[in-house]
């Protein structure tokens, strides 16, 4: 998937001179995951700039650049380091269009790795999408495959508003797929129905999509037909696709890696309960990360929901 992200950068930089890249180690080093590898060599050190080591500055400077008409694509090295940038994201990035009644805008992308599973050190494996989805004015996007990473990143760069782009670290190297470098964007704001089914709706995003598809495949052998929906854009969220599916299946299981309490799954469950309670044949269930600190890596797969927990979640949801 990291190659697809790199390819999307290169495509858009080649076709739009306003696109510039900034972040820690994005230049000669090509980013710690190599998402920006080769970009500085190809597009020069003016358009691909290493930033000083300050996340708040990266987010804040990107706002100033975007308001000046550039299209910055800025990298935060790990999502666990997002906190110093939250002031800029919440106080300015999300609000600039609104507080100037559209006079100044923020067409930028803030990319960052999301989640755990690659034996990284402390603070390198967090799933903090809830912090960002709570802020109107932002789009929060989380691709679940190389093709969707390519298409959604292109869409994010072309979007007239700020997009937080969460890249599941487990998929950087493990997700392999041929992706056509054709400059075709995918729609931001739409869910992706990855597997049609009739018995249960499984809503998920990011790296958990891969495990959810495996779980759906496993229960298919038992004759259970799961509809797997990759939310794709976490905010603003496409509830229409989710509700249509729940009306059809009558069952809903939500799977996410982030902690359970006030996770995005709670919002999805609440909305489905408000809009489609009488279409449900049983309680909505969630399989999520625990309400614990993300453990150091020896225990990270004890924290991250695996296929077994998702399969059990499917069975429990169907049994009620």
């Amino acid at each position, binding site marked *: 998937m990291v190659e697809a992200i790199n390819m999307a950068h290169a495509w858009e930089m080649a076709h739009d001179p306003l696109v510039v890249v900034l972040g820690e180690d994005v230049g000669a080093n090509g980013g710690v995951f190599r998402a920006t590898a080769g970009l500085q060599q190809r597009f020069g050190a003016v358009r691909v700039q290493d930033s000083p080591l300050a996340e*708040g*500055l990266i987010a804040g400077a990107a706002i*100033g650049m975007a308001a*000046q008409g550039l299209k910055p694509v800025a990298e935060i090295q790990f999502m666990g380091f997002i906190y110093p940038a939250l002031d800029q994201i919440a106080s300015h990035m999300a609000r600039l269009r609104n507080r*100037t*009644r559209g006079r100044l805008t923020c067409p930028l992308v803030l990319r960052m790795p999301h989640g755990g599973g690659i034996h990284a050190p402390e603070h390198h494996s967090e799933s903090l999408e809830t912090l960002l989805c709570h802020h109107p*004015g932002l789009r929060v996007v989380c691709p679940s495959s190389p093709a969707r990473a390519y298409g959604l990143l292109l869409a994010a760069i072309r979007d*007239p*508003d700020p997009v937080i782009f969460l890249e599941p670290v487990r998929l950087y190297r493990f997700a392999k797929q041929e992706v056509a470098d054709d400059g075709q964007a995918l729609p931001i704001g739409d869910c992706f129905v990855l597997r049609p089914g009739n018995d249960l709706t499984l809503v998920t995003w990011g790296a958990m999509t891969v495990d959810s598809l495996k779980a759906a495949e496993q229960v298919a052998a038992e004759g259970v037909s799961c509809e797997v929906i990759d939310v794709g854009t976490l905010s603003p969220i496409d*509830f229409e696709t989710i509700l249509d599916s729940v009306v059809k299946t009558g069952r809903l299981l939500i799977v996410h890696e982030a902690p359970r309490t006030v996770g995005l799954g709670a919002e999805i469950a609440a909305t489905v309960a408000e809009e489609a309670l009488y279409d449900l044949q049983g309680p909505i269930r969630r399989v999520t990360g625990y309400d614990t600190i993300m453990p150091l890596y020896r225990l990270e797969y004890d924290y991250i929901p695996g296929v077994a927990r998702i399969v059990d979640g499917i069975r429990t949801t169907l049994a009620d």
Partner: protein
Amino acid sequence: MSSGTVVARFEIPYRGCLASDGTLCGPLPAFAEDTELLQRLYRGMVRARVFDTKAVNLQRTGKLGTYPSCLGHEATHVGVGAAMRAEDVLFTVYREVGTKFWRGVDMLDVLLYWGGDERGAVYRRNPQDFPFCVPIGSQMPHAAGAALAFQIRGEARCALVFIGDGGTSQGAFYEALNLAGAKALPLVCVIVNNRWAISVPVSAQTAAQTLAQKAIAAGIPALQVDGNDVLIVRESVGEALERARRGGGPTVIEALTYRLSDHTTSDDATRYRSASEVEAAQRIEPIARMRSFLEARGLWSEAQEQSLRRECSEAVETAVKQYLATPKQSTDSMFDYLYAQLPPGLRAQREDARRYAALRP
């Protein structure tokens, strides 16, 4: 290198021109030959003060929200405005109406903003300047980003960013200066040292001898100026901007002034500072000295003063009338500027807000 060798030194020069009685205490800048400009600087300061007095009164009579007075800061604010070019971009805190007016922002805009209406940030004649910035220090990275954009595009433009004495305690202040220094950005930062961050004096804010010297750590030249002297502010900021425009990199200028007012209309400064201190500051305030200077040179008369005061009052009254006659925005406006296009999921909330708005008298 032997142990004990001094490996770095720095100096912070101080500059002033007009003493508090309007006589000269330093060389007069070359632009002082332009007597029309001298009068404009004075007019700009008086205009800001007349507006400010009215704004405070409007708040006291319940016609304006919380308002941060600019009383005493007029020389710094106007001097900066006069030093900038139209194509430069301004990043302020929330007090700099003198700079805003100089750059074409309407009095009506400022009243609307503090009167609770986002349309006060739609600067019709100044499409690129940023609006007031309330979270302290957070404007600094925006200015650095804009300066980086100018540098990337090879434009001879500058970002001018204000910050207060309290703001220099924020990480964003240093982060932005650090970037500006590392990349030699066309950025000029004016620290408005008005001695008080609400109730905290500079002496409690930092042990640094000057705020200007905080720039030294970022490798940026810095100086301290008399912020109550519009001539030296105009001159020093102008020089810094020209240097930045030519690729000479950033400058930090600490302007020493004094907040003669409460922090905002919600504050009561008598709780934390003495009347004698304020009286002493009153004696060195910026407007009287500039008037004395102009009068001594035969460039200003009582008749001109009367006419200016009348003109400013009329402009303010016109703006106030427009402000009070401006109907509030539609409820839709809460939703319509969140994104370029309203996300479908928000349509129902917009409808809901509309419905309840219609029910209110």
